[in-house]
């Protein structure tokens, strides 16, 4: 009798517990879905950022990026993780083929990245006649012409990474978005593909290859002071 008196409240308690459990389950599922969606979104952002960012490289910047790094990782590996790297055939011949012949370890690293698909080698065909006329007037070397042609023919790249002074100037006059390697490190750090600390270490690592002032300038840009 006593048990039957307590039955309605027991059922009510049981129903309340079930509802509470259900709410918890729904909440947990929502949290899981959110977390999964966030992870998926982050992966997509990372992938799309890499897919969207396209960098062309000249030889000296490429060699420097493959010779210097932080810890066990070379600068070119950080860059290849951030963007699609494209080089003309002439740059491959200068940086990789000649480097392998001479036994440079950075050439081995570059060769590995090409074989892994992290660096793409592109053919730089002659471009439109007015462009070719102007380039011929500059009287630069065939390898320089290849860089200029590749920029002309690749419409959707973000920057051409170049440390050569005259080539930088010509690329700038063609509004081809040249960028010095130290400043690329600043961009990669600003895009949060590497930390500011890693960026600083990379800039200090390549210091010996640059004229005084270049690295100091990039370091202040990295810290947002310029």
């Amino acid at each position, binding site marked *: 009798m006593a048990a039957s008196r307590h039955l309605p409240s027991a059922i009510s308690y049981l129903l309340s517990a079930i509802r509470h459990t259900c709410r918890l389950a729904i909440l947990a599922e929502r949290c899981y879905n959110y977390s999964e969606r966030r992870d998926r979104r982050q992966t997509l952002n990372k992938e799309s950022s890499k897919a969207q960012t396209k960098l062309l490289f000249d*030889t*000296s910047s490429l*060699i*420097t990026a493959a010779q210097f790094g932080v810890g066990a990782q070379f600068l070119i590996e950080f860059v290849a993780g951030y963007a699609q790297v494209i080089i003309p055939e002439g740059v491959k011949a*200068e*940086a990789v083929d*000649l*480097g392998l012949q*001479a036994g*440079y370890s950075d050439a081995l690293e570059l060769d590995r990245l090409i074989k892994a698909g992290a660096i793409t080698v592109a053919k730089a065909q002659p471009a439109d006649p007015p462009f070719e006329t102007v380039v011929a007037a500059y009287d*630069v*070397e*065939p*390898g*320089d012409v290849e860089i200029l042609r590749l920029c002309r023919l690749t419409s959707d790249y973000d920057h051409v990474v170049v*440390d*050569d*002074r*005259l*080539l930088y*100037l010509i690329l700038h006059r063609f509004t081809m978005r040249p960028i010095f390697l130290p400043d690329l490190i600043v961009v990669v750090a600003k895009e949060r593909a590497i930390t500011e600390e890693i960026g600083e270490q990379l800039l200090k690592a390549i210091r*010996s*290859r*640059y*004229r*005084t002032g*270049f690295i100091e300038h990039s370091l202040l840009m990295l810290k947002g002071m310029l």
Partner: protein
Amino acid sequence: MTVKIAVAVDEKISKYVQALARSEPESYSDIVRALLEEGYKREIEKLHASYSRGEITLRGMARRLGLNYRELYQSLADKGLPL
């Protein structure tokens, strides 16, 4: 790696080298070699200055020195000359 070359030089240069060889412990060929190396070093510095002023590209500098791009890159690094 070293290679042997035979060159004809102006008589004044030859007399200068002979005078140096008499006063210095180095041999005639050591002095000629040192002069050539000094001239080469100055040529690299001159071309590097030209590159730094934006008058020629690194590839242009390599061609003028008879080097390939890799050799020039390494040569500049060895001499502490910036890109």
